[in-house]
């Protein structure tokens, strides 16, 4: 058992917070490590130190026995063999896939001093097939899906043959098949004697593929365990400090839904751009939580967007409280109490450079009487939401970009709930959130439903689909193929329905 990375009392301090506190551990060769912890626990900071994006304030790092002072990612890669896939995308959207893969390394493709593009494209194609991706490498990277981009970055990292491969939240956007293939490749790395660090909020995946787990909490390493010694609940306990499994709020499984009033319904929803929807009929009742499930990209998000008035080009009818509505722009939906929460909150929901206070006001701005914002009232409302949802921020004037993912999501939820909506269309409200934040969101959604709101949400994690909603609609290729009641729904049955035609 040779030690490849040795970290001694690594500490990282930022102006306002100590992100890592005396973290000490050893990583061995030919092993797969899981790194888990809530958002804000310090995972990304630790990885960034290994990658060379940051340097530790105190502490010592040794790689392959030698003291390591990693100043930048290129050095990490070339000198220490540390490479991997970051949580946030690194591809430049205007450059082609092939160009992105060899950015900075084009010298290998020189012929008479000029880049030989044919060679570049061929090599890119080779590397991508190795990870199971078959796409046109001349496409600009901006046109790929998140899943494809992750695989491209993985292929790129693989091509450098790193000694230490770091994978930070790469499975969130991938399908099961891709994930299975990814795990196989990670195991291959282990067989070749390399070390892998796998970071994910999906504890089941961590338990499946890793040999050992490092658990961070509040910047400290609170546990270093062998994976086969622990269960999911144990990890959660280490991560959150509380003995609690991932719990979901109680549901009223005996409720007679047919007797409840229908708040929103749609008939014959159909569209071809930007995605396909075929003849979708849907009814949403008061107090219901309905999940749109299925494999990724089968039209779930597009259905939400259509109902929310974000897609003007649709056919079919949408009714709110029995009255037909033309949902051609978001304002039409909002006016009738139908709000949409995007899955891409950084891009579509939050103004990152603005404060929490101002973000909370975003949706309400157009309806403020006489156009004058009353600061005191704004602060009052914001404080109310802060305590209600437990938004962690030193001050309401803090820029939203300084908040963790979970807290940002709470800000987004608050922003919309202020509008006193009747229907919430939530697109993947818990992606990227840690266990604690997820449970908060589940609780909030269920409480809102109990007060009479209707919630239609796209959920991607099996556990959520099985335990949160009252009803599940499985979509495939733009159609609703199955409606399942949550009563007695098994994982098996659910999964099978995903593949039905």
């Amino acid at each position, binding site marked *: 058992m040779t030690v490849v990375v040795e970290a001694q009392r690594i500490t990282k301090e930022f102006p306002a917070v100590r992100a890592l506190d005396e973290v000490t551990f050893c990583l061995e060769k030919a092993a797969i490590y899981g790194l888990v912890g809530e958002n804000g626990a310090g995972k990304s900071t630790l990885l960034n130190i290994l990658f060379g994006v940051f340097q530790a304030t105190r502490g010592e790092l040794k790689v392959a026995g030698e003291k390591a002072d990693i100043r930048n990612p290129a050095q990490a890669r070339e000198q220490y063999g540390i490479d991997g896939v970051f949580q946030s995308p690194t591809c430049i959207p205007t*450059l082609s896939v092939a160009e992105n893969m060899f*950015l*900075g390394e*084009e010298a290998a493709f020189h012929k008479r001093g000029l*880049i030989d593009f044919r060679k570049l494209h061929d090599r890119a194609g080779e590397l991508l097939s190795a990870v199971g991706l078959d796409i046109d490498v001349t496409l600009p990277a901006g046109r790929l899906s998140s899943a494809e981009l992750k695989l491209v970055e993985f292929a790129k990292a693989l091509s450098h043959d790193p000694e230490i491969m770091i994978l930070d939240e790469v499975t969130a956007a991938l399908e099961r098949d891709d994930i299975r293939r990814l795990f196989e490749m990670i195991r291959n790395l282990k067989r070749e004697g390399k070390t892998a660090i796998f970071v994910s909020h999906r504890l089941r995946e961590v338990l499946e593929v890793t040999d050992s787990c490092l658990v961070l909490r509040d910047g400290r390493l609170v546990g270093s365990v062998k994976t086969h010694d622990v269960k999911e609940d144990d990890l959660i306990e280490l991560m959150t400090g509380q003995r609690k499994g991932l719990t979901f709020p109680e549901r009223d499984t005996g409720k007679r839904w047919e007797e409840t009033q229908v708040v929103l319904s749609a008939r014959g929803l159909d569209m071809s751009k930007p995605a396909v929807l075929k003849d979708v009929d849907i009814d949403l009742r008061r107090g219901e939580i309905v999940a749109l499930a299925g494999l990724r990209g089968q039209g779930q998000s597009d259905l939400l967007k259509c109902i929310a008035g974000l897609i003007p080009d649709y056919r079919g009818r949408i009714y709110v409280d029995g009255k037909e509505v033309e949902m051609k722009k978001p304002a039409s939906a909002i006016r009738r109490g139908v709000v949409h929460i995007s899955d891409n909150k950084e891009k579509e929901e939050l103004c990152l450079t603005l404060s929490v206070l101002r973000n909370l006001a975003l949706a309400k701005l157009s309806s403020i009487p006489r156009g004058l914002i009353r600061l005191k009232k704004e602060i009052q409302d914001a404080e109310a939401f802060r305590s209600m949802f437990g938004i962690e921020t030193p001050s309401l004037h803090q820029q939203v970009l300084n908040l963790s993912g979970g807290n940002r999501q709470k800000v987004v939820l608050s922003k919309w709930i202020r509008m006193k909506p009747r229907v919430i269309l939530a697109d993947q409200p818990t992606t990227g959130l840690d266990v604690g934040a997820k449970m908060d969101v589940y609780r909030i959604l269920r409480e809102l439903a109990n007060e009479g709101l209707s919630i239609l949400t796209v959920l991607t994690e099996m556990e959520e689909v099985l335990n949160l909603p009252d009803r599940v609609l499985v979509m495939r290729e733009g159609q609703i193929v199955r409606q399942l009641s949550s009563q007695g729904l098994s994982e098996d049955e659910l999964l099978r329905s995903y593949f039905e035609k």
Partner: protein
Amino acid sequence: MLFWASCISVIKEFQILYTYRSLLLLASPLLFAALGETIVIISGGFDLSVGVIVSSATAIASLTMYLDPLLSIALVLIFGAAIGTINGLGVVKGRIDSFIMTLGTMFAVNGVALVIRPEPGGYIDPTFSQLILYTVSGFPVTSIILFVIVSVTGVALLQRRNFGRELYAVGGDKERARRAGIKVDQVEFLAYVISGICSAMGGLVLAGQISTGDATIGLPYLFNAFIAVVLGGTLAGVGGFLQVIPAVLLMTSIPSLIRFLEMTSWYDFVVKGIILIAVVAVQQRITRRRL
């Protein structure tokens, strides 16, 4: 697609005016300036000092050529590189927005040029001038050669050299380029230095053509170079010099066209403005559909 549209309009000029022989001659200095501007714009910035470097180049040449033409040329190029360096330092180290920085250098250099050459005049070595203007049965040979060299070098640099790819990367997404290991600061800095040198070279060619130093002659070059770059569909991280070349030719031929149609020369600006807006509107519609 825009490339072809520009080509077509330029060819129309040819047919109407029969002045194609002088077109390349007139366009050469602009091509140099446009190359510099293209490089900076692709990197994500702006270079507003392009025009004044051209005029200062003529001014410096007119003052120093009597000593030794080669020395003079060297001085001009060093000057261009120096201004480029100042721009580069301001943008990269001083973190000053490129628009503001190069605006500042533009005013400063303009002032300096007027101080050293308040009135057009001075001495440009006749041999140099003859070389630049060398014509064979109506065809401006030197201009053609220069034009071809600049075009080929420009396109090759941007498309087929590492530096070119890095420029696009930095313009496309600076932070991600940095994470990919590209020395973003170096790349940006070099872009401004190269632009300074290109503009200086353009000024030299111009000086040879008009055999004078003129501190005010360069201002339209900024204007035209900028529009040519945008017409060529080039912005931060996208586009290329190949598309800018026909736009350069277009910009050069418009004044002649206007004279031919017997409109007053002020229409020059009106026409260019309208073309700019119209073409960019079409471009936007095309890119929006593609991404």
